[in-house]
């Protein structure tokens, strides 16, 4: 990206504000997901409640980012990297909002699971979360550091999460058949695994937005070889 300042200082201020909002929103989203999983594993209903309540902040951030983006389009008619920054920021905020929604869903299901006896194989969620969080963290870094190669790598790394999702879902599904009276909890876990798998997909989208910002390339629905060119 271009690093020298604009002649118009107000334009620079708006661009900085937009970036700052996206990074704050990303930090809050990641924090929500982390707390949702902790609430699930540590059976902490208060923590789950605060995740559900804090989703409003992320929703508000999405609105603010759209507003800032629209203002920049309206006032400064941005071109090239500036235009791509506005477009990718607005798209990234949409993906972050959806990730935070998944964190909320996990927190809600965590509360339901907590009301019954603890399941030993709940810990199978941990490695999925670890990978999903890594993907999310790297997607944000690819945007903030202008690292297109990192952004482009997420799609392939998300495949591992897809595989884990499949295996873990199969495990929980078999437990539904094998055990009696725990069907509800296992179904909740299957949905939580599904949410984490979606976090991987959405992080991969953010990585693609970062690639668009850096290289003006649209990686959506492209082949492996096109991605490896980044």
């Amino acid at each position, binding site marked *: 990206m271009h690093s020298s300042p*604009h*002649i118009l200082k107000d*334009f620079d201020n708006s661009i900085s504000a937009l970036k700052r909002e996206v990074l704050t929103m990303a930090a809050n989203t990641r924090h929500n997901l982390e707390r949702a999983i902790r609430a699930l594993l540590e059976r902490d209903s208060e923590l789950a409640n605060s995740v559900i309540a804090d989703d409003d902040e992320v929703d508000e951030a999405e609105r603010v980012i759209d507003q800032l983006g629209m203002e920049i389009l309206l006032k400064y008619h*941005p*071109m*090239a990297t500036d235009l791509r920054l506005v477009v990718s920021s607005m798209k990234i905020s949409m993906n972050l909002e959806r990730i935070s929604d998944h964190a909320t869903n996990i927190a809600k299901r965590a509360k339901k699971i907590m009301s019954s006896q603890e399941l030993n194989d709940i810990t199978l969620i941990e490695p999925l979360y670890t990978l999903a969080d890594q993907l999310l963290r790297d997607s944000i870094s690819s945007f903030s550091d202008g690292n297109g190669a990192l952004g482009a790598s997420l799609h392939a790394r998300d495949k591992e999460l897809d595989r884990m999702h499949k295996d873990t879902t199969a495990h929980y599904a078999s437990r539904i058949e094998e055990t009696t009276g725990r069907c509800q909890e296992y179904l909740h876990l299957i949905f939580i695994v599904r949410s984490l798998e979606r976090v991987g997909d959405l992080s991969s989208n953010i990585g693609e937005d970062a690639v668009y910002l850096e290289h003006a390339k649209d990686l959506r629905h492209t082949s492996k070889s096109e991605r490896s060119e980044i």
Partner: protein
Amino acid sequence: MGEEKNIAIDVRSVDFCYGKSRAIKDVTMEIARNQVTAFIGPSGCGKSTLLRCFNRMNDFIPGAKVTKGTIKMDGMEIHDPQVDGVELRRRVGMVFQKSNPFPRTIFENVAYGPRILGEKNKATLAAIVEKALRGAALWEEVKDRLNDSAYSLSGGQQQRLCIARTCAVDPSVILMDEPCSALDPIATARVEELIHDLKKDYTIVIVTHNMQQAARVSDRTAFFYIGELIEYDSTAKMFSNPSVKQTEGYITGRFG
């Protein structure tokens, strides 16, 4: 051969000097037929000078000349002694920043060129004037007042009258030097819409300081800086992802 047919203006290694000052430095570019090509760049970058080279308007400035390279129009070198400057300027029309109608009627402004070229038949002249005014999207507005002074028209209408006057002599190329800089947004939109229509029949080269205008009206954009052609590419590419850092700096408002 097919490729060559699509090039209206072929500029090769052109240097242009005002006395000792080199205003254009080794510029090579091909301007495609029936497309709109925009020239952008900060003041003094040579874009207007190059535009004026295309119809040898710079011939009128003492000490100013192309010192190196060639400019071919439809395959013919425009500085060739066989090329008549007046005939060249018929084929390469020009529209200026400020509309400059002649102090005559609307009709006479458009009929002026064809008359000079020898057209005397009144019916033919009337047909040419109507066709040119229709082409410039002005006919409906002026058809009942063709004998009014051209100065009775608004600024935007005067500019479109000048475009009609250019079209009346059947050029192949129309050069526009900031044609909308003195117009309000509505008149600008009308001229831009007209540019869109005109490219079916003409090759258009437009100099503009308005980046959004270049993005809206042109197919290809050339960025000039201190006499050099820095980057020349499709307009979509130039404004979304220019290859050269200087272009990026200019179009994003970081220098200039």
